[in-house]
């Protein structure tokens, strides 16, 4: 999810502030002049179909992921986003007049999504992904507004952002915006069909996938030239989801639809930060929209999924007789099976699993060390919890196990060294 990692590289904002200081100051004055507090409580009476569409769009845009804190009231904010420089809290977007956005007009709402400016004129931090939402149509923004304005108002006060100087100067964001706020994000695949167009909107704008999957530069900006090629901001890396990246790990449109629609595909199940994304957002997409997302991610002419290459004979013989295989049989086979096929509706297959097919062993090692909590999906699917093995595997054993898995079922090289594991502990 966006936020946890976005707040992070705000570090260099100060520098940017200097570069674009003057222009920023002028703009800032304008924003603040036009900013308002107080004012009438908005009475929004949108037709039911607009509200329903707004609900759908808010799910596609995954608003709840940040604006509903764990254990908190829906859309009442409070999710803390840690950064090296302090903590940013998501805000209350229920229509409470005092604690929420009950006095915001549709125009105010639009400005927040489109320009990253609050109703009071202050700048938002890009933890709120307005860099992606900027591409949203006004009609969609208004529909989301209509939806959130009829939610139950929640009396939950916003928490103050706790950034240290100079990052607590919101004005700094003005300069940042001038450099990095674009009207539209580049396409990652080729296509021109309506479905592809729709997919691009869903992925780049509403789904704001790039906020995690696109690498970030030194001031926390998305490096758009390398859109969606994957990035590791959190513990679990967001993998490469460009057409080439997906195809190299065996993904097909059907696989993506299953994964995004249900959390489960032959290629694996959603874990880490993707699990809540599926649960809160993508599983609610219509079949057409899911298909559009898959078409956009792979392009109108999707590359064929790469078959699992036969394991390198010497490497696999080595792996099969070594410590990695012993650990697999001792710790993994009880659930994933000696043949790596898993158990339907219970345990994912490791054979041909997308995570094993990543060249970067990071996610595999993280899963081995930390385990994966029980994952409930819609449709009563539920993968049992995977225990973490950090206390049962030494660095060398974990590396050997990773290599066994990569060589045997991932088509990757058995080149993971113990030091890689140690670095991830």
């Amino acid at each position, binding site marked *: 999810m966006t936020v946890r990692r976005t707040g992070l590289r705000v570090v260099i904002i100060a520098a940017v502030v200097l570069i674009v200081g003057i222009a920023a100051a002028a703009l800032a004055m304008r924003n603040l002049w036009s900013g308002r507090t107080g004012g009438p409580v908005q009475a929004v009476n949108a037709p039911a179909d607009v509200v329903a569409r707004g609900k759908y769009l808010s799910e596609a845009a995954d608003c709840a992921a940040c604006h509903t804190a764990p254990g908190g009231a829906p859309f009442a904010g409070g999710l803390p986003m840690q950064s090296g420089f302090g903590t940013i809290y998501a805000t209350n977007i229920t229509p409470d007049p005092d604690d929420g956005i009950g006095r915001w007009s549709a125009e105010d709402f639009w400005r927040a999504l489109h320009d990253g400016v609050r109703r009071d004129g202050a700048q938002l931090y890009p933890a709120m992904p307005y860099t992606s939402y900027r591409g949203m149509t006004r009609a969609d923004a208004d529909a989301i507004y209509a939806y959130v304005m009829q939610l139950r108002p929640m009396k939950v006060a916003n928490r103050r952002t706790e950034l240290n100087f100079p990052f607590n100067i919101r004005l700094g964001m003005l300069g940042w915006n001038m450099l990095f706020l674009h009207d539209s994000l580049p396409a990652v695949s080729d296509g021109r069909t309506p479905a592809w167009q729709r997919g691009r909107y869903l992925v780049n704008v509403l789904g704001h996938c790039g906020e995690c999957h696109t690498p970030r530069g030194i001031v926390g900006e998305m490096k758009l030239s390398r859109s969606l090629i994957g990035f590791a901001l959190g513990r679990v890396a967001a993998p490469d989801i460009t057409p080439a990246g997906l195809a190299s790990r065996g993904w097909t449109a059907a696989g993506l639809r299953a994964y995004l629609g249900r959390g489960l595909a032959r290629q694996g199940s959603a874990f880490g930060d993707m699990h809540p994304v599926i649960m809160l957002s993508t599983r609610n997409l219509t079949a057409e929209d899911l298909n559009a997302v898959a078409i956009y991610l792979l392009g109108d002419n999707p590359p064929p999924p790469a078959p699992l290459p036969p394991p390198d004979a010497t490497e696999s013989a080595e792996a099969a007789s070594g410590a990695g295989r012993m650990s697999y*049989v*001792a*710790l993994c086979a*009880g*659930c994933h099976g000696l043949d790596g096929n898993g158990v339907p509706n219970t345990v994912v297959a490791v054979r041909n699993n997308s995570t094993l097919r990543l060249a970067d062993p990071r996610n595999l090692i993280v899963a081995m060390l930390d385990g994966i909590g029980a994952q409930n999906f819609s449709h009563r699917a539920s993968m*049992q*919890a995977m225990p973490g093995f950090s*206390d049962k595997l030494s660095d060398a054993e974990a590396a050997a196990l990773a290599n066994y898995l990569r060589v045997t079922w991932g088509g990757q090289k058995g080149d993971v060294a113990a030091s890689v594991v140690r670095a991830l502990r």
Partner: protein
Amino acid sequence: MILQTRPLTVTINGRRYGPIDVPEGLMMIDVLHEMLGLTGSRLGCGIGICHACVVIWDRDDQTSEEVQTCITGAGFFDGKRIRTVEGIARRNDKGEILALSPVQQAFLDQFSFQCGYCTPGFVNAATVLIERLKRAPVPRGQVEATVAAALEKHICRCTGYVRYYQAVRDLILATPGLTRDAA
């Protein structure tokens, strides 16, 4: 079909077993049941969820932890020390039971279990918890939360958990050294 085997040497309840040839890929619960005659550990789900099958792994650093034997291969236990429910009570040389452990006695006194199928797992979990509290006592006010957290993973269909939890709580509160006064 030729079965690959691997030698297993393991210390269970203080007694050394092996090396015995164990077909590769057998889970520990099957070795306990089929090869070692230790049938006290229960198979409830077979996928690591219910914790009826747990044994206690005594680590070299003097700590102990639960391990689900239904999903853990025999090979994992090679060279290790474990306790099964058969090893919890105090026995004499002939293997006769001299005294139940405090946990077992508490479960009995408080009518904690019904069908008893989950009981080996609860005995082991509570034993591990008490051993942990010996090393790191908790404030008295946190005992209930500590018990609940330690037993949460164990499934019991019969009892509704109340008498298990109460028995462990009361035992902890009554045993000197497991709790401290303030936070």
